[in-house]
C-alpha cells in the first residue's frame, strides 16, 4: 500500500485516499466519481463544462440583440425560432425582451462564465496541482461549491422561461427599476429568481474562495515557499480573497433589495409615484444600493481579470521559454491591484448625484490602479523580448489578452477621469471599454487556460490547427465588434437603447452598427470551431504526454491518469521557482521545480 507522505496537514484525507490509489478508482460509483465528486479535477471539469454551456447561451443572446440593433424592425426567423411568438413575434424582438436579454447576457457573462467558470475551473484545477497538494483543503465544501453554482445556473436559465420574462433592469439591477414590479415586467417573478440565483451563486463563490485560500496557505508541498509559487496561484489567491471580502456585501445588497421588494421596507425607495399611486416608502436611497453593489462590483472586475492574468503569466513564460519578467513586481502588482480594487468603486457613480467631492477621491484611487496594471502589461511584453516564442493556441490567446488588456485599459484612463466621464458615462464608449478590457481579456485568458491545461483536464490534446483558426477568428471579430463602439460613444449613443431610430441625430451611425453585428455573427460562428475542438478532443483527441509544453510547474509531474490524490506515492518536493526556462548551464531549456538546485546554483525567485 503506497502511503502518501504529506506536509502533515491532511491526515483525514490520507485515510480517504488510500483505497483510491490502490484500486485505481474502480470502487467509486459513477455518481460519486462524476456527479457528486469531491476530486478537485472533476469539479474543475464540471465548472468548465457548465460555464461553456452558459457562455453559449449568453453569446446567442448577444447575437439576437445585435440583430435588433443593426436592423431594428427587420424580421428574423432566427429570432422567432429562439424566442417564440411572445417575445419574437414575426421575428421582431420585443423591447422588454431586449432589455431582458442584455440583462441576462451581462449577468451570465460576468458571474457564471468569467467568475464561476474562470475561477471555478482553473483555481480548482491548478491550486492543488501547482502547490503540490492532494486535493483542496475540504473536498466536501468544494463539491458543494460546484452544486450551488449548478443550482444557481439552473435558476438563472429557468427565469428565462417564465411568463413575464427574466430580470430586465440591466445586470446592475439598480432599484427602483428592479424593486418595483410596476416599473418593468422583468421586475416581477424574473427579478425574484435573479436574486435567489445570485444569492446561491454567492454561497458557491464563498465556499470555493475559502477553500482556495486555505489550500494555498496550508497545503503547499515541501519547499513550495510563497515566493516560489507560480503567478497563476498568486492571482487565484488574491482573487479568492477579493471574493471573500466583497461577495458578502453583494449578498447584503441583494438581501435589502429582497426586503424592499417583498416586505415593504424602504432601504432603496423614497418618494415614488408609480402605477397611478404614491408609494408609502420614504427615506431610502437608490444611491445606497449603488454603493453596496459597486463595493462588490468593482473588485468583481478584478475577480474576473486576475485569474486570466495569472494564466497568461504561466502561458507566456512557458511558451516564451523565458522566466516571467519581474516576478516580484508581478506579485506586488497583483496585491496592489487587489487592494486598490476595494477603494475605487465610486468611479461607477460619478454621475449619480453622489457628492462630487467623494467623486474626486475615487478619481485619484482609480487612476492609481493604472500603475500596477501598466507594470503587468510591460512585464508581459518584456517576457517575450528575446524569447523563443512557441505559438501554441494558448500562447496566441495569451498574447491576445495582453493586447486587449492594453487596448481596453487605456480608455479606462479616460473614464476614470470624472470630468471626461460626464459626457461618455453610460454610453457605448463605456460598453466598448469594459468589453475589451474585462470581457475580452478574461475570455482570452480562459481560452488560453483551456488550450494549455486541456491535457490536465481531459488527458488528451486539442487540435492545434483548429485552435489557430479559432484564435484568429476570435481576435479579429472581437475587435471588429467592440472597437467601433467607441465611435458610437463619441456620437453620444446611450447604452441599452432598443433602437437608435427614434433619434435622428443617430441616423448616420447605421453602418457602424451593421459592422458590429456582422462581426458579432462571424465571431459567434467562430466559436463553433472551439466547441467542436473542445468536445471532440475530450473523447477522441490525441493522448497527451506527461509534459507536452515542457513546462516547469508541478502539475506536469503528475501521471497522465486521473488519480484522486494527484501523485501516486510521495508528494513532490520543490527546490526552485517555476520559471527556470532557458537557464544558462542547463541541458534543456526548462528545469522542473522538482529538480534540486545544483551546487552554487541560485534560485531565480530571489532566495
Amino acid at each position: 500500500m503506497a502511503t502518501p507522505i504529506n506536509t502533515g496537514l491532511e491526515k483525514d484525507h490520507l485515510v480517504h485516499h488510500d483505497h483510491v490509489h490502490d484500486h485505481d478508482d474502480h470502487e467509486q460509483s459513477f455518481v460519486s466519481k462524476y456527479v457528486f465528486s469531491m476530486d478537485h479535477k472533476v469539479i474543475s471539469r464540471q465548472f468548465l463544462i457548465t460555464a461553456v454551456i452558459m457562455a453559449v447561451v449568453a453569446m446567442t443572446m448577444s447575437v439576437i440583440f445585435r440583430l435588433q440593433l443593426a436592423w431594428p424592425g427587420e424580421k428574423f426567423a432566427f429570432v422567432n425560432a429562439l424566442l417564440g411568438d411572445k417575445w419574437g413575434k414575426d421575428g421582431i424582438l420585443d423591447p422588454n425582451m431586449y432589455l431582458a436579454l442584455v440583462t441576462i447576457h451581462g449577468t451570465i457573462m460576468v458571474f457564471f462564465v468569467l467568475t464561476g467558470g474562470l475561477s471555478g475551473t482553473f483555481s480548482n484545477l491548478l491550486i492543488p496541482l501547482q502547490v503540490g497538494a492532494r486535493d483542496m483543503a475540504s473536498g466536501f465544501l468544494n463539491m458543494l461549491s460546484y452544486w450551488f453554482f449548478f443550482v444557481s445556473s439552473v435558476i438563472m436559465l429557468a427565469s428565462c422561461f417564465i411568463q413575464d420574462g427574466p430580470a430586465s433592469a440591466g445586470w446592475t439591477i439598480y432599484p427602483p427599476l428592479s424593486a418595483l414590479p410596476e416599473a418593468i415586467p422583468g421586475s416581477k417573478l424574473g427579478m425574484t429568481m435573479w436574486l435567489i440565483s445570485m444569492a446561491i451563486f454567492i454561497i458557491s463563490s464563498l465556499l470555493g474562495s475559502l477553500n482556495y485560500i486555505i489550500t494555498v496557505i496550508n497545503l503547499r508541498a515541501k519547499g513550495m515557499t510563497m515566493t516560489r509559487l507560480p503567478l497563476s496561484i498568486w492571482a487565484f489567491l488574491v482573487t479568492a480573497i477579493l471574493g471573500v471580502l466583497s461577495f458578502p456585501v453583494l449578498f447584503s445588497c441583494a438581501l435589502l433589495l429582497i426586503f424592499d421588494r417583498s416586505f415593504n421596507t424602504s432601504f432603496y425607495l423614497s418618494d415614488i409615484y408609480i402605477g397611478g399611486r404614491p408609494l408609502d416608502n420614504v427615506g431610502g436611497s437608490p444611491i445606497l444600493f449603488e454603493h453596496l453593489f459597486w463595493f462588490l462590483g468593482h473588485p468583481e472586475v478584478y475577480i474576473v481579470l486576475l485569474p486570466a492574468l495569472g494564466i497568461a503569466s504561466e502561458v507566456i513564460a512557458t511558451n516564451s521559454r523565458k522566466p516571467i519578467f519581474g516576478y516580484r513586481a508581478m506579485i506586488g502588482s497583483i496585491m496592489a491591484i487587489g487592494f486598490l480594487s476595494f477603494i475605487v468603486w465610486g468611479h461607477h457613480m460619478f454621475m449619480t448625484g453622489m457628492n462630487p467631492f467623494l467623486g474626486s477621491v475615487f478619481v485619484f484611487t482609480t487612476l492609481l490602479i493604472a500603475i500596477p496594471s501598466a507594470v503587468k502589461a510591460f512585464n508581459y511584453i518584456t517576457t517575450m523580448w528575446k524569447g523563443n516564442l512557441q505559438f501554441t493556441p494558448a500562447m496566441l490567446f495569451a498574447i491576445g489578452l495582453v493586447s486587449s488588456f492594453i487596448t481596453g485599459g487605456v480608455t479606462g484612463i479616460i473614464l476614470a477621469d470624472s470630468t471626461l466621464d460626464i459626457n461618455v458615462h453610460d454610453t457605448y464608449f463605456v460598453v466598448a471599454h469594459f468589453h475589451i478590457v474585462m470581457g475580452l481579456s478574461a475570455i482570452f485568458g480562459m481560452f488560453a487556460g483551456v488550450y494549455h491545461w486541456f491535457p490536465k483536464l481531459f488527458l488528451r490534446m486539442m487540435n492545434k490547427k483548429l485552435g489557430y483558426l479559432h484564435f484568429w477568428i476570435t481576435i479579429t471579430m472581437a475587435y471588429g465588434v467592440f472597437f467601433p463602439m467607441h465611435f458610437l460613444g463619441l456620437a453620444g449613443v446611450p447604452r441599452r437603447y432598443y433602437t437608435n431610430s427614434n433619434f435622428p441625430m443617430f441616423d448616420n451611425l447605421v453602418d457602424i452598427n451593421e459592422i458590429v453585428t456582422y462581426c458579432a455573427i462571424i465571431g459567434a460562428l467562430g466559436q463553433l470551431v472551439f466547441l467542436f475542438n473542445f468536445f471532440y478532443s475530450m473523447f477522441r483527441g490525441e493522448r497527451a504526454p506527461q509534459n507536452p509544453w515542457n513546462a516547469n510547474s508541478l502539475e506536469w509531474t503528475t501521471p497522465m491518469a486521473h488519480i484522486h490524490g494527484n501523485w501516486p506515492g510521495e508528494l513532490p518536493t520543490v527546490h526552485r521557482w517555476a520559471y527556470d526556462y532557458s537557464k544558462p548551464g542547463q541541458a534543456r531549456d526548462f528545469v522542473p521545480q522538482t529538480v534540486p538546485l545544483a551546487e552554487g546554483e541560485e534560485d531565480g525567485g530571489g532566495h
Partner: protein
Amino acid sequence: MNLLVLLAIVLLIIAGHQLLKIIELSRGLKKTKEWQVTDTDNNMMGKVMLAFMIVFFVFFFWQIERWIDRSLPPAASVHGKLIDQLWDANMYLITVIFLVTNFFLFWFAYKYRGNSKRKAVYYAHNNKLEMIWTVVPAVALAFIIIFGLKYWNEIMADAKDPNKVVVELYAKQFDWTARFPGKDGKLGESDYRQITGSNSVGLDSTDVAGNDDVLVKNEMHIPVNREIELNIRSRDVIHSAYLPHFRAQMNAVPGMITYFKFIPNKTTVEMRKDPYTVKMMDGINKQRALNGKEPIEFDYLLLCNKICGVSHFNMQMTIIVDTEADYTKWLATQKAYKTVAVKQ
C-alpha cells in the same frame, strides 16, 4: 424539402465522421504529433502576428478617418470647451500608448517567433527598467489627475451667478417635464403625494411660489450665455438627464434633487450654421434620404441615459437655446401652472 435538408445533414455527418476517422488513423503514421508546434508553425504564426498588427492599425485609422466626423459637435457650453480640450489631450496620450505598446507586443511576437536552433535569453528582472515604467506612468497620471480634478471642481461647484436661470428637469417613465420659476423667480415646493393627472410634477398646493411656475414638455427654451442650473428630479425610477451637446449629464434619482449647471454659449441658430454641424447634418440627411425620410435640422437634445424601462430608448426633449430676447418672449407666452390647473 425538409426531408432533403435532413438527408443532406445526415450525409454531411457521415462524411465528416469518415474524414475524422482517416485523420485519426493517419496520426500514428506521422513523426510529429498534430499538437506539437513546429518551426514552420512558429514562423507562420509570427508572420501572421505582424500582419494582424498592420491590419489592426489600419482598421484603427480607417475608423477614425471614416467615423470621427460623426462624433458630437464641438461643445456648446463654456465648461464643455474645457472638457473637449482635456478630452483631446488625454485621447492623444492614450492613442500613443495604445499604438506603441501594441506595436512592441506584436513586433516581439514576430521578431522572436520560435526556432528550434535558437535559445531564449534568461532575463528575469531589471529593477531599473521596472522603476522606469512604474514612475513614468505615475507622473503622467499625476498630470491627468490634477487637470481632471481642477476642471471637475469647477464644473461641480454650486451655481453662483445671481442672474442664473433655474430649471427643473422632472423625469418619469417615459418623458421629461421642464419647470421654470415664474415671475417670482422661485420654484414651488413639491410633494409626490400630491401628484395627480393635472399636477404631474406634484406641486405642493400649500406653497404659493409654485402657482406661477411654468411647465413644458417636448421642447424647452433656455437663454444663451447665462448660467443654467438644472434641478433634476425623478418620479419613479432612476433616469439620467443627458445633454451631450453641452457635455452635461446627471442622474435623476427618486427621493432627491440632483444638480448640474452650465452656460450654453451658442444658440440653436448659431449651432446650425457651425461648419462642423453643417457637415455632420449633411451626412445624417444623406442617410435619411436613402431611407426615404425627410431631412432634419440640428437640435440640441435631452436624452435619458439610465435604463428606466421599456421605452428608455425614446425619452427625449428638444432644447432650444435662444437669444436673451427670444427667450424672454418665449417664456412670456407660456402659461403659469395655476391658470392651467384651474382650467382643467
